[in-house]
């Protein structure tokens, strides 16, 4: 499992709106496809993504099978204080992945 790719600016001015980009490697098997032998491939997707900023939730996403493989998200937040931005992905079959990024706010 390769680590998720996170793009968070290392420095920001207080009150600045910053873009956060995340990309995680996951096949996002829809549960609607068949294998070459005709068996239905069971659903295996990431169902939820949560982003917290110093412990406070700032963004949450619920994924459905229509989200493309290797889910990619860009969203925004206001740089309020220096600290840690944490990301978690949870999904089918006990899938769980986390990542963190640090930001310095002046």
């Amino acid at each position, binding site marked *: 499992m390769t680590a998720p790719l996170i793009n968070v600016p290392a420095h920001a001015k207080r009150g600045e*709106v910053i873009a956060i980009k995340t990309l995680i490697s996951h096949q996002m098997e829809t549960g609607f496809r068949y294998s*070459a032998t005709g068996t239905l491939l069971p659903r295996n997707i990431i169902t939820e993504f949560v982003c917290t900023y110093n412990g406070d939730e*700032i*963004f949450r996403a*619920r994924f459905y099978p*229509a989200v*493309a493989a290797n889910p990619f998200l*860009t969203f925004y937040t206001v740089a309020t204080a220096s600290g840690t931005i944490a990301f978690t992905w949870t999904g089918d079959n006990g899938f769980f992945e986390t990542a963190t990024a640090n930001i310095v706010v002046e």
Partner: protein
Amino acid sequence: MSKDEHNPTRRKILLGAGCMAGALGAPTLLAVRHAQATPATMAAAIRQVVGEATVKPGKIKLDLPPLVENGNTVQFTVSVESPMTPTDHVKAIHVFNEKNPQPNVISVHLGPRAGRADFTSRMRLADSEKVVAIAELNDGSFWADTVEVVVTIAACVEDGIP
């Protein structure tokens, strides 16, 4: 009409079941097909999110290419005009489609700390269809934008790994 359509192999039927049955327009395939989202199921899914509220056009913009070459990965951006203050902000954005096996695509929840009500992701599209984005504001109002896309290579026509 290709020759294959008149002599469907088992594999063809299964594929059709996955997401092409409606597109092929072959009624004989419908008996074995999977549930496929239709304009009605999309409307039902939207109703589940908005409840009794009326959905108005405006404020929200769904940015999606009008012509998509590959339905497996379609990048889209949803942005909502909102000051994103504690008293006036976007609570959630939902994206729906008409013809994938399920009507829901993604639901995101945000708040005044977002600064901008805007996000980008990638979706799958099984056919040329309508995509709808709906924004839920903190005052309880709902705003929608609809985009019609033409897809040349649909998602889920290829087989998975055995």
